[in-house]
């Protein structure tokens, strides 16, 4: 075995580990942290602010502040509200795009939006998973079958692409398959974003899209909410163990409704349950306790679990 391979492999792993550890331990830029803390302290409920006003309060230049706000906007911590020409601090559990957040504010008549996300039923849809897997698995299995001499695809492949070995052609197909799977994933995510927003406002209750290009025509006013429950299927539980974002169904019973309204595969269902319970009970103070932590978590700037002892704060 080539000694260069082993030495190169081990040293590249060690060097990458040390550089990343040093980079990640640098922590958040103090100026960003100052702006974020000020926004959370002052604008969680009063929400709207201008660059000029905030720069004055923080005693920093408007250009510097604009740069910081741009980063915070990219990470969905603040949003620019076009019809007000002002910025707003997004509540920690608002995962909407700036456009959809502005729409939600407009439709709920500037209510305090406590939770906003998109239903994601595709995440636990077997067909969705299979379609993505097929794009990757077909060329991958063909590659291994070719390499292991189980089949010989060279007559077909080299006829299409002369001057190339079949294994290399299959690697090329594998690369294209990975890209197609990712693109399909993005299309489905984009589609659900157009169709399935769910917004919870402090006064307006629950607003949701009922069909494609809807404008949150589904409404469950706060006073009509009777009960709320979480339901996690086996697939959702498995997805939550290994998948990216935890999802679960939220079932809302309301006065005048024959059947409960089911919001399928909502991101962070437990938190949505708490938000709905809290608007039913009129108890919203808990948000302020956790706003800083969750905002920093969303910003990607705070290691969510410290490297030493696990924090019990907030439990």
């Amino acid at each position, binding site marked *: 075995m080539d000694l260069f391979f082993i030495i190169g492999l081990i040293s590249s792993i060690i060097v990458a580990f040390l550089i990343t550890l040093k980079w990640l331990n640098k922590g958040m830029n103090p100026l960003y942290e100052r702006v974020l803390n000020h926004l959370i302290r002052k604008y969680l409920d009063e929400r709207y602010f201008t660059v000029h006003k905030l720069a004055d309060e923080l005693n920093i230049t408007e250009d510097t502040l604009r740069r910081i706000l741009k980063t915070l906007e990219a990470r969905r911590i603040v949003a620019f509200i076009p019809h007000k020409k002002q910025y707003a601090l997004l509540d920690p559990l608002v995962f909407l795009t700036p456009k959809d957040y502005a729409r939600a504010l407009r439709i709920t008549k500037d209510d305090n939006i406590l939770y906003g996300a998109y239903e*994601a039923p595709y995440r636990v849809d077997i067909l969705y998973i299979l379609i993505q897997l097929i794009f990757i698995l077909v060329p991958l299995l063909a590659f291994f079958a070719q390499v292991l001499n189980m089949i010989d695809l060279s007559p077909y492949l080299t006829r299409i692409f002369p001057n190339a070995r079949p294994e290399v*052609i299959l690697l090329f197909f594998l690369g294209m398959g990975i890209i197609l799977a990712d693109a399909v994933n993005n299309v489905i995510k984009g589609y659900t974003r157009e169709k399935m927003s769910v917004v919870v406002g402090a006064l307006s209750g629950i607003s949701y899209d009922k069909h494609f290009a809807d404008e949150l025509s589904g409404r469950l006013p706060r006073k009509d909410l009777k009960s709320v429950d979480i339901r996690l299927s086996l697939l959702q539980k498995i997805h939550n163990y290994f998948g990216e974002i935890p999802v679960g169904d939220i079932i809302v019973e309301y006065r005048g409704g024959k059947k409960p309204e089911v919001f399928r595969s909502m991101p962070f269902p437990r938190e949505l349950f708490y938000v709905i319970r*809290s608007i039913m009970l009129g108890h919203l103070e*808990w948000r302020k306790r956790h706003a800083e932590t969750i905002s920093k978590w969303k910003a990607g700037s705070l290691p*969510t679990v410290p490297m030493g002892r696990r924090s019990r704060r907030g439990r």
Partner: protein
Amino acid sequence: MKSEEIKFEIVEDLTRPYRLSLKAQIALYVLSLIFTVVILYYIPVPLSLEMKIMYFVAVAAIIYPYTIKIINALSESLALSLYVGAMFAIIYVLLKIYSPASLREVMMLLIFLEVLGVELLNHLFNRFRWSRSKWMYVLAGVLAAIFFVALFTILNIPTLGSFIALIISAVFSVVFYYAIIPERPF
């Protein structure tokens, strides 16, 4: 129920309550690695030790984000070091076994490594996928341009013709760009 009776459990790590315990995550990851070693050891196909190591590091990198869900500086550093190790091993072994004999092969391997490099990085290190900065869009544009040139070189064959090859390359380059631009998961 009085509002005071509700104990809101929004903890630092929003996702933690949904995941397996840290010990279970580590145990599952280690078991998966042992299983991979056993398969590679007993596989009835003559594979060089370099190839076996490459497969092992690649599998270790691919399953890491599925099993290890805790997010801190240590776990993220491990993820990135696995990425670098896997890419090093894959590039080394591929170039050794399939050292390109023609321009078309160079471009095919370039596309495979470019796609694998970007997607594996996105898979292991969410920060890059979620970070919507100007530089990320510029980088995605540069990678899409490289992808376009490589794909056009591959597809420019007599049966297709230059014009059709150009159109297909352009379409797939847009798909590539769309697939790799920063995307929030929710």
